[in-house]
């Protein structure tokens, strides 16, 4: 199946938001999604973006039964003002990533989300998206790419391991921790005053 990978434009945020929710449903965590497409637009397409995003598109003749298409409309094929969207293409996947830093090794890229709609899996689109993230990382002189996977998600574990991923939680015992919501606020209130 022919597909294209390109940088997301702010007009893609509604589609990205839709797919973020689909991925959260797949991970059994849909109730945790709080961001809107407006949040995504503000946070990814301002002068100081907090993430970058790649989109995978297929030609319209491959669009899904419910007609998934650019900007969530049921008819496809219009050209955006930015000129970046391809007429006659349907958005079917995305990769969202940002740059991090290792005090041991330097610049890194972290792939936060990689998602391809179920109807379009097994056709190399996920590999294509990830290859582009890898390319961007290498161009920015990153020494590694990191990501996280849920331990029960065997298809994803197999996919990443086949590409050379090493499980650092198993190998070196790294755990993810966080201060969230109320616990973060409580700490913040006790901060030393300027």
């Amino acid at each position, binding site marked *: 199946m*022919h597909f294209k990978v390109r940088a997301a434009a702010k007009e893609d945020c509604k589609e990205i938001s839709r797919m973020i929710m689909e991925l959260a449903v797949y991970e059994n965590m849909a109730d945790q999604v*709080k961001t809107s497409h407006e949040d995504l637009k503000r946070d990814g397409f301002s002068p100081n973006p907090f993430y970058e995003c790649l989109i995978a598109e297929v030609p319209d003749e491959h669009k899904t039964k419910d007609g998934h298409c650019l900007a969530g409309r049921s008819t496809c094929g219009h050209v955006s003002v930015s000129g970046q969207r391809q007429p006659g293409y349907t958005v079917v996947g995305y990769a969202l990533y940002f740059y991090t830093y290792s005090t*041991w090794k330097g610049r890194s890229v972290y792939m936060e989300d990689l998602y391809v709609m179920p109807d379009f899996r097994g056709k190399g689109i996920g590999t294509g998206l990830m290859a582009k993230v890898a390319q961007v990382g290498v161009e920015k002189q990153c020494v590694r*790419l990191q990501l996280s996977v849920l331990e029960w998600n065997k298809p994803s574990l197999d996919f990443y391991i086949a590409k*050379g991923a090493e499980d650092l939680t198993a190998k070196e015992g790294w755990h*993810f921790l966080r*201060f*969230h919501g109320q616990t973060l606020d409580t*700490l913040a209130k006790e901060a030393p005053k300027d």
Partner: protein
Amino acid sequence: MDRFKLRKAEPKDVPDLLRLIKELAKYEDMEDQVILTEKDLLEDGFGDHPFYHCLVAEDPSEQSNNNNGPVVIGFAMYYFTYDPWIGKLLYLEDFFVMKEYRGFGIGSEILKLLSHMAVKSRCSSMHFIVAEGNQASIEFYKRRGAADLSLEEGWRLFKIDKSSLLKMSSGPEE
């Protein structure tokens, strides 16, 4: 110890930062993995596109080897990341206080200041990783309300090294 000072790192702190980074790596039994140089730290933290931000803790009563200035005795390196479900996050990459300065509340004060900065920048969460063998640190964080997402939700951290990245990025295009 209540006379220690917390401030934003400046380019002149880079030699101290590298010293403390190596001390932290030694504490984690991984000192041979530090390949970063002072030049990298300077360019990556204080250049056109900073990849990190840093706080340092100073003990003004100490004298450094070269002059009478304060000695940097702790640091926290952080940057902003993104969770598509909840938005901006503050990610704490490294957090270290020199051994002889522990137990005086310096680490606690650094953590509180980081939390304050996170909330002020509209972050919903502060994330970090800890090695499961590092019980002292895990207890430090858990006492203050941290949740272990690897245990609670099953998240595992993976890395892909540069050689595999190069292989991936030069693969056939569709």
